């Protein structure tokens, strides 16, 4: 004999405004297997939950149906309430009479009342057949992988490591620090980027719990939250870093020069090089594409001068396997290929540069040792135009979103320019000034007032070279007049786009990116650091363009999520997953190919299919694929569903 309790929620007037609750309650008070039919204004409130708990204890209920909002909202609330009253949580079901009934039938109240009764009837059939299930528990590998060694990755890695867990920090380039290390000074305080960052890079480099893997890329990820198996390719550096002391002699003597990526083409580097003077780790690599030995077969100068015989031209890539329980994706950003906006002549006119190039011009470690000199002839530019929204908010040629940092960094650039060239004039073309952060609006206003920057509201249409000047055609929409400036240099605030390879990495991680290639968060407001895949968390510009304070905050949040996972003794998973009727299974393997989560495999000895309980997400793909109906979802068997449908019809 079943003793099922029905609890109907008014949800204020959300449900009660459409559905005749007293009638529904009365209908079920005489219904088969219903021990109690009750209602309350807000079932999710504490008094509402108390009704449910008390009824379980006093009436000895062995099943509960709560007729309320979507199970996405409060299924967990009522299941937990049932547990505290001693009832198995999987004997509690939600009859969704809000989203699927009252909200969509507000103008047909009688029909809505009838439909709500039908919905409740079907769920009663389900509860009658539900089995008491126990959550599945499995062990957690309490080590984390952080992908990306910029400020986001470093912050997350250090936070996790400081809590006592091991971290594998993987960085594509051969030293950590990311884009922030390339910056000169940072807004809104104008403090030197290296000075604020290097204590962090040094800490990450020396932390006993952080295994730094630079010049490496994640190649394969298998497994699931709590237990990932990762393959990482460590690219051949041709320098034995165990021997290398970082003395720098090889860099000094190397005869091959090429454009420096770190200086964004404004300076040169050697073929054997460290990324920056503050590189962590301070070890060089040989770039095969520019090395004379690799290209022409002779040279070997570095090998001759190295005092510790660290050069090894025979070195090969290595693939290293790591086991981790959680992954933080902090792969950062690039800027849009500025050539895509041809009217600004980037790539054609030497003195049209992008924001990151200006950072290098202004940096003490940059190609001009921090003096503002234009690339074409090294002259100090006296009139400089800064253009915002280059590619951003431009659905035609660039990207439709706002890159979020350009307003601030171009304001910063103009101000730094005025520090170094006090008699220079800076013009800033903008569409809107988005200075959203703490101290940002004040920074912009101060720049206008004290640095005499001229902000011009309007977009620049084209730039033309005329002698040694760049003629800029723009508009001042505030005065409604077309504007022409003969500038010495133009700085473009180019749009922020995801790192190269982010989409491929997302595939490796089996998580999703948005249409632009930024990693998708599980919920834009409530789960901003969780990815769509359990155990994978997001930090920094990998998720969306953001500035340093927001990046650091998000990285800290991602680390906290990892730690709250590691804080659990065992991983607990919902038992509502696939199971196999061993009598029916013929071991055909259709389910193995149907499963999108790699959760199905064949037991060769028994010649049947089995389920990896940790990987199975209960999607049901195998259930529909199985020709013998041997695959079933727990508490959702075809028999149960047929009974539910019968009742509805």
């Amino acid at each position, binding site marked *: 004999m079943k003793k099922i309790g029905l609890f109907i929620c008014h949800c204020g007037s959300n449900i009660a405004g459409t559905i005749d609750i007293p009638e529904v309650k009365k209908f079920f008070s005489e219904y088969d297997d219903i021990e109690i039919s009750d209602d309350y204004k807000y079932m999710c409130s504490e008094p509402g939950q108390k009704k449910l708990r008390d009824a379980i204890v006093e009436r000895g209920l062995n099943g509960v149906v709560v007729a309320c909002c979507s199970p996405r909202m409060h299924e967990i609330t009522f299941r937990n309430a049932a547990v505290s009253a001693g009832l198995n949580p999987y004997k509690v079901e939600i009859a969704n009479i809000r989203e699927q009934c009252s909200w969509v039938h507000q103008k047909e109240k009688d029909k809505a009342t009838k439909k709500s009764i039908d919905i409740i009837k079907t769920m009663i059939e389900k509860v009658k057949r539900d089995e008491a299930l126990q959550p599945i528990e499995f062990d957690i590998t309490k080590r984390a992988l952080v992908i990306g060694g910029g400020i986001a990755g470093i912050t997350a890695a250090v936070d996790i490591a400081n809590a006592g867990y091991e971290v594998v920090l993987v960085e594509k380039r051969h030293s950590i620090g990311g884009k922030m290390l390339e910056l000169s000074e940072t807004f809104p305080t104008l403090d030197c980027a290296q000075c604020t960052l290097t204590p962090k890079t040094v800490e990450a480099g020396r932390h006993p719990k952080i295994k730094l893997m630079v010049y490496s890329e994640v190649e394969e990820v298998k497994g699931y939250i709590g237990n990932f198996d990762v393959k990482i390719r460590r690219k051949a550096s041709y320098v034995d870093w165990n021997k290398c002391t970082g003395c720098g002699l090889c860099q000094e003597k190397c005869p091959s020069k090429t454009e420096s990526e770190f200086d964004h083409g404004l300076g040169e580097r050697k073929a054997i090089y460290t990324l920056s003077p503050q590189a962590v780790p301070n070890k060089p690599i040989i770039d095969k594409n520019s090395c004379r030995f690799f290209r022409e077969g002779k040279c070997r100068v570095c090998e001759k001068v190295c005092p510790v015989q660290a050069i090894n031209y025979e070195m090969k890539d290595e693939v290293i396997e790591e086991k981790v329980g959680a992954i933080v994706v902090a792969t950062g950003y690039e800027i849009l290929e500025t050539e895509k906006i041809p009217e600004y002549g980037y790539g054609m006119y030497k003195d049209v540069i992008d924001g990151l190039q200006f950072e290098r011009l202004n940096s003490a470690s940059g190609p001009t040792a921090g003096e503002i000199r234009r690339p074409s002839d090294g002259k100090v530019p*006296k009139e400089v135009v800064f253009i915002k929204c280059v590619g951003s908010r431009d659905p035609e040629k660039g990207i439709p979103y706002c890159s979020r940092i350009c307003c601030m960094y171009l304001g910063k650039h103009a101000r730094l320019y005025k520090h170094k060239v006090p008699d220079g004039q800076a*013009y800033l073309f903008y569409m809107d000034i988005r200075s959203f952060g703490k101290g940002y609006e004040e920074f912009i206003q101060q720049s*206008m*007032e004290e640095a005499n920057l*001229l902000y011009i509201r309007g977009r620049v249409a084209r730039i033309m070279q005329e002698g040694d000047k760049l003629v800029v055609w723009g508009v001042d929409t*505030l*005065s409604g007049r*077309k*504007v022409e*400036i003969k500038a010495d240099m133009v700085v473009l605030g180019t749009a922020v786009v995801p790192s190269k390879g982010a989409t491929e990495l997302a595939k490796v991680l089996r998580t999703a990116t948005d249409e632009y290639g930024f990693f998708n968060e599980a919920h834009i407001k409530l789960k901003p650091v969780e990815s769509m895949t359990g155990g994978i968390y997001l930090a920094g510009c990998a998720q969306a363009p953001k500035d340093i304070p927001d990046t650091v905050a998000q990285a800290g949040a991602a680390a906290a999520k990892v730690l709250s996972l590691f804080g659990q003794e065992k991983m607990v998973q919902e038992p509502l997953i696939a199971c196999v009727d061993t009598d029916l299974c013929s071991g055909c393997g259709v389910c193995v190919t149907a499963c999108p989560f790699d959760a199905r495999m064949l037991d060769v000895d028994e010649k049947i299919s089995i389920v990896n309980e940790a990987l199975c997400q209960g999607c049901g793909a195998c259930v529909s694929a199985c020709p013998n109906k041997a695959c079933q979802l727990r508490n959702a068997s075809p028999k149960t569903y047929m009974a539910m449908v019968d009742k509805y019809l």
Partner: protein
Amino acid sequence: MKIILDKEKLNSSYVQAIKEMSMQKVMSCYQCGKCTAGCPIADFMDVVPNEMMRLVMLGEIEKLISSKAIWLCTSCFQCGTRCPKGIEVHRVFEALRSIALREGKNYTNIEKLSEEQLEAIPQQGIIAGFRKFESLE
């Protein structure tokens, strides 16, 4: 008409004079337009207050000193009282008027006024008329 911007123009003697005479941080104007919104006679002006501020920022002064707006301004101080950036816009108007006066731009030719007109118009009105309105003639 197109505005050609350069360093010299943005720092011309006119601009310097306006900044000094008005004692206002002209460049801190962010063009919200509240001065114009509150001005009781903006409707009658050929250059409204926020537009005037913008043209000062762009170094386009000549248009301003020959405008009628600077003489229509009644110095009621609403603009300055309401400005969120604390710019006393009326002082910028005053500076423009001073520059116009120093340029000696007279609209009224006293020789052409009849005896009756000279009798009827108060002396202050005649002096104002030198600068303000061609319509007095």
